[in-house]
């Protein structure tokens, strides 16, 4: 990893910051999309389905 990224002694702080960002925004996206998919499935199961 040192070839492409040379962060020296700050590497741990930097990777934790980017890792937390990826985890939080990735998790938020995942849960947002999952809630959407579930709502769509429930709406489809009921009469009328999605608003057109």
């Amino acid at each position, binding site marked *: 990893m040192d070839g492409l990224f040379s962060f020296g002694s700050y590497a741990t702080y930097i990777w934790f*910051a980017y890792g937390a960002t990826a985890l939080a925004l990735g998790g938020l996206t995942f849960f947002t999309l999952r809630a959407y998919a579930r709502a769509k499935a429930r709406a489809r199961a009921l009469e009328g389905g999605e608003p*057109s």
Partner: protein
Amino acid sequence: MFGFANPQRFWRLSGALLPWVWGAAIILLGVGLYWALIGSPDDYQQGSSVRIMYVHVPASWMAMACYAAMAAASFVGLVWRHVIADVAAKATAPIGATFTALALFTGSLWGKPMWGTWWVWDARLTSVLVLFFLYLGYMGLWAAIEDRVKAARAAAILALVGAVNLPIIKFSVDWWNTLHQGSSVMRADGPTLDPAFLYPLLIMGLAYTVLYGALLLIAMRTEILNKRITADQRRRAASEQLHVQTREGA
């Protein structure tokens, strides 16, 4: 603006926008991350730790921008009973809370090597922590009150009262002595940050903004569907009740 109060119209428009907004978010994040981690130089004082700025500063901007959007939507919902505005305010809260948590966490990771401490109870850090609690309180109110209309009203009032915290956060570095540095981008006399750092930072800021837009549209569509599902269930329950009453009466 009030044309969008119609959920059907919002549904059609947001459906057409979604692929574009998601595409733009992914491209901007890709370009921004490359520039932040590989394409930008180290700072002459902070060394490579300056790279934390590219995720910390946009998260802080979004923490405040989301709150401002939530308060503005709450105001419109409160005053004009604008259904979509209430939906937008509610959908913004978890996104804003996530950005605020990230601002605090990445700030702590930047503070340790630069200031020698993870946390100080100074004006900037404390006011952002208060912002985080305001988001939690707002979401808690929505969850605690069953009646949607009452929940929307109570949450909107909290959002508007809490908006007083926004100028406090922004100017905390000017009004009080703090470890946190002053503004170097959003200044009346223009940014003082070198373009080598400024441009990747602005790309990341734009990427976060567009990602907020993408998540907001999805969360709003989810909320609209859930409202319809609840209304449908109520209608069914009411008609069943009526059916039973009619049978009993006969």
